[in-house]
Structures are given as structure tokens and as C-alpha cells.
């Protein structure tokens, strides 16, 4: 990429002399990076990762089916978790925006608690202590966590709609439910769509936690193949096959979020809703 750097507070747009210097740095660093890549390749070759026996399993139909089944299970868990999280998020957000103090307190307590807990602890608790099957346990854990994060996303979205909109709706004689469902929520959801999709990326990534509670998802299938003695324990080949698929799926969803964000920003209809830009979306199980 020889694109000129964007104007930043750090540098002036470089002149001819600086550009030559940068070119030199670029060449040098490329050599170093290629060197590291070559070293990794050497490690791979040196430890015989490309011998036929290690890659043979991927030729067998049974093993391909095993992987596909795992991928299917991953997507199944993701789809369920996504739907339930959105629903729980809506319920909790409604609770937090309620006019009744006890409802608000309960919703706030739930949201804060589930956001502060590691997802894995919740999943293990449901799986071990409540003795639930792996799939429901995984989906429940993901739902509780992502649902409460989404609740906060919805809530910030509603708060970000200019106050006048709600006031105008009330002045027209609408009731709170009407104001919410007809005026505030549609705008909030539109503006927060990128953040919502990014949270779904988190849910997709976290389905791999199912591996730890013996849910037969993609990584689990990989582990089964990787620890097969007949194929000389093909750990590295399995990682090399599985990671691009996992990363690719998440990347597609992330890109979709960025694309939606960019489209929203261009759309004149969203100009009225001056919501905090969802551009630097942090796709991380964290607290905002």
C-alpha cells in the first residue's frame, strides 16, 4: 500500500525526501516481516507439518462430514443465541426504561451482574450446577451475557434520539408505549444497528466456548481429528484449516457491521438522529 498517509496530528504530509526515507523503511521492514514468515514456514517444514499423513484425514468423507456437522452446530448455537439475546436485550432495555422504580432496579441489577460475570462462569454454572445439556447451557450463557450488553445498546440508542422527538410525540397525546414503539425505538435500532451486529460477532466468537463443555461444535470436531494417532496427531494442520474458516465467518460479520455503519452515516434520513458514531465499534465482551 503506497497510499499517502491521511492527514494526522502526528505528521505533516511527507515531502520528497521523507518519502524516499519512508520507502527505505518500508523495504527494510518488509524484509524483516518476510523473514519472520520464512522462519514460521521453516518451523512448519522442519516439524514435518506438511507430510501427507497429517493432511490425509481431510480427504476422508467421514471426517469432512464431522467438520461440517461441527460447523452446523456452531451456526445453530449462534442463531439461537442471536435470536434469544435480541429478545432478552429488548426485555431488559424495556425494564431499564420503565417508569416503575422496582422494575428499573431489577433490570439494572440483572444487566450489571450479567455484564460483570465472565460468560464462561455462567455457562459452566448452567452446565455443571443446573445439569443442563451442552447446547441449551451454551445458548443460555451467551444469551444472558449478550442480551444484557444489547440491552445497554438499545438503551443508549433510545437516549440518543433527540429529546424533542419524544416530547413532540407526547404532545400529540401518544402514550409511552406508542412513543416508544412508533418514534423512539425504530430510530434507535437503526442508529445502533452496527453496534448490534458487532455484538453478534462477539456471540459468534463465543460459541467456541461450547468446546469447553463438550458441545460438539466446530472446534470440538477439530480437536477430535487433531488428537487422532492414526494421522500422527495433525494439530497444526487442523489449526490451519479451522482458523481461516472461523476468522472468515467473524470477519464477514464484522465487515457487514462496518458496511452498515458507513451506509447509515451517508443516509440523509439518519441525520436527524445524532447518535454517537458506532464507527470505533469494539467487538469485545467488555463494558462500555
Amino acid at each position, binding site marked *: *500500500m*503506497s*497510499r499517502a*498517509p491521511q*492527514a*494526522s*496530528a*502526528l*505528521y*505533516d504530509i*511527507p515531502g520528497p525526501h*521523507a518519502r524516499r526515507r*519512508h520507502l527505505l*523503511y*518500508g523495504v527494510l*521492514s*518488509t524484509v524483516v*516481516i518476510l523473514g519472520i514468515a520464512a522462519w514460521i514456514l521453516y*518451523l*512448519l517444514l522442519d*516439524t514435518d507439518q506438511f507430510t501427507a499423513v497429517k493432511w490425509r484425514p481431510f480427504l476422508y468423507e467421514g471426517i469432512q462430514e464431522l467438520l461440517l456437522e461441527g460447523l452446523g452446530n456452531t451456526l445453530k448455537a449462534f442463531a439461537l443465541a442471536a435470536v434469544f439475546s435480541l429478545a432478552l436485550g429488548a426485555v431488559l432495555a424495556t425494564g431499564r426504561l420503565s417508569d416503575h422504580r422496582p422494575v428499573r432496579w431489577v433490570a439494572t441489577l440483572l444487566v450489571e451482574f450479567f455484564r*460483570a*460475570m*465472565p*460468560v*464462561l*462462569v455462567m455457562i*459452566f*454454572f448452567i452446565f*455443571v*450446577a443446573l445439569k443442563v445439556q451442552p447446547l441449551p447451557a451454551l445458548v443460555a450463557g451467551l444469551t444472558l451475557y449478550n442480551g444484557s450488553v444489547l440491552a445497554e445498546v438499545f438503551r443508549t440508542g433510545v437516549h440518543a434520539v433527540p429529546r424533542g422527538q419524544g416530547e413532540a410525540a407526547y404532545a400529540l397525546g401518544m402514550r409511552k408505549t406508542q412513543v416508544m414503539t412508533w418514534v423512539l425505538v425504530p430510530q434507535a435500532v437503526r442508529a445502533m444497528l452496527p453496534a448490534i451486529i458487532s455484538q453478534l*460477532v462477539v456471540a*459468534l*466468537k*463465543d*460459541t*467456541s*466456548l461450547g*468446546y*469447553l463443555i463438550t458441545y460438539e461444535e466446530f*472446534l470440538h470436531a477439530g*480437536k477430535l481429528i*487433531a488428537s487422532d494417532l492414526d494421522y500422527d*496427531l495433525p*494439530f*497444526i494442520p487442523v*489449526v490451519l484449516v*479451522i*482458523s481461516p474458516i*472461523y*476468522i472468515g465467518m*467473524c470477519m464477514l460479520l*464484522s465487515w457487514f457491521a462496518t458496511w452498515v455503519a458507513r451506509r447509515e452515516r451517508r443516509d440523509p434520513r439518519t441525520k436527524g438522529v445524532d447518535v454517537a458514531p458506532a464507527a*470505533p465499534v*469494539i*467487538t*469485545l*465482551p*467488555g*463494558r462500555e
Partner: protein
Amino acid sequence: MDVLTENFSLYGEGFLGTLELTVYASALALALGFVMAAFRVAPVGSFRVFGTVWVTVLRNTPLTLLFFAVMLGLPRFGIVLPFELFAVLALGCYTSAFICEALRSGINTVPVGQGEAARSLGMSFTQTLGAVVLPQAFRSVIPPIGSTLIALAKNSAIAGAFSVTELLGTYKTLSELGYNIIWTFVWIAVGYLIITLSISAVFNVMEKRWGVAR
């Protein structure tokens, strides 16, 4: 209730394990994240590409997969390290991508004019960076870095499932000893709450003291 008092040392060990993991991985994540952020705003193209690839790949990798690759894959290369070190590596590298993005967006919040003004006053690059740009960037990144480190502390639970001594892992021993599983988990939850809430409190103080008023 007895679970805690009778197994205080076991819980303590797990708690310290989680704490240690969090501290070391945070240090690694902050250092690596800083380097990657510098790469991503560097004027040299290949640095930027490297930083972008690092962040994009790690941000879209499930952490469990990363742990799997590091803990079970690296030994196949003949790289055998203690599990704790592997865990710190996986957690630190993963989180560095998020730290990098937080830092970069912090640098981007500094208006271009600030840098231009500094340069027109004749400040050198180091002066511009150290006296004008970084102090402002630092202030605006306190909250996102705080939430990233809280996420790191929570993510460290995954290391327990990969046989690193930490808080979540204590449930196994305790359930084998026949303790009430619900109470076992209650105290694990309390342990995590103590850690995450402390980080959050520290960052709240920092934000109050140095944060940007908006």
C-alpha cells in the same frame, strides 16, 4: 457458606492465579497494543499493513480457538512453555488488538490542527508527540482501555479450562470433594466481581482525575 471457609487456601490460590494472569496479560497487551497502534499510524506503508493484519485477524479470532492453537499447537513446533506462560501469551496477544484500536481512536480524536500548531511553533516530532498529542490521546482512551482490561480479566476464565490454575478451575476440585456446587459457584462469582469491580473503580478514579470533560 462452609465451602469458602473450609477451602480458603484453594480459593485463594485460584484468585491469585486469576489476578496474576490478568496482571501479566494486561502488561503484555498494553505493550503490544501500543506498538501495534504506533504501527497503524506510522507513515510507512508496510508498518500500517502489518498492524492492520494483526488487529483484524486477532479481533476476529475466537479466544478459545487461540488458546487451542497456542496451548496444543505450539508444543508441536517444539515450543514447550509452562501453561501459565502460554495463557499469558494468548490472552495478551488477543487483547492487544483491542488495546491498539482504543489507542488509535484516541490518537484520532486529537484534532489535526493541534499537531500543525505544535509544528509551526517549531516543536520537534518527539515534542509534538510527548507534549501535545499523547497527553490528549491518553485522556480520551482511559474508559475504553478500562473496559478492555475488564474484558481481559473475565476472559482469563478460559485459561482455567485449559488447566491453568485460576478461579473458575477451583470448581472441579471442590465438586469432587462433594461440596454444594451452587455455593461453590457463588464464591467464584464473588471472586470475579471483586476483580472486575476493582479494575472498574481504578479506571473511574483515573477518568475523574484525567479524563476529558465532554
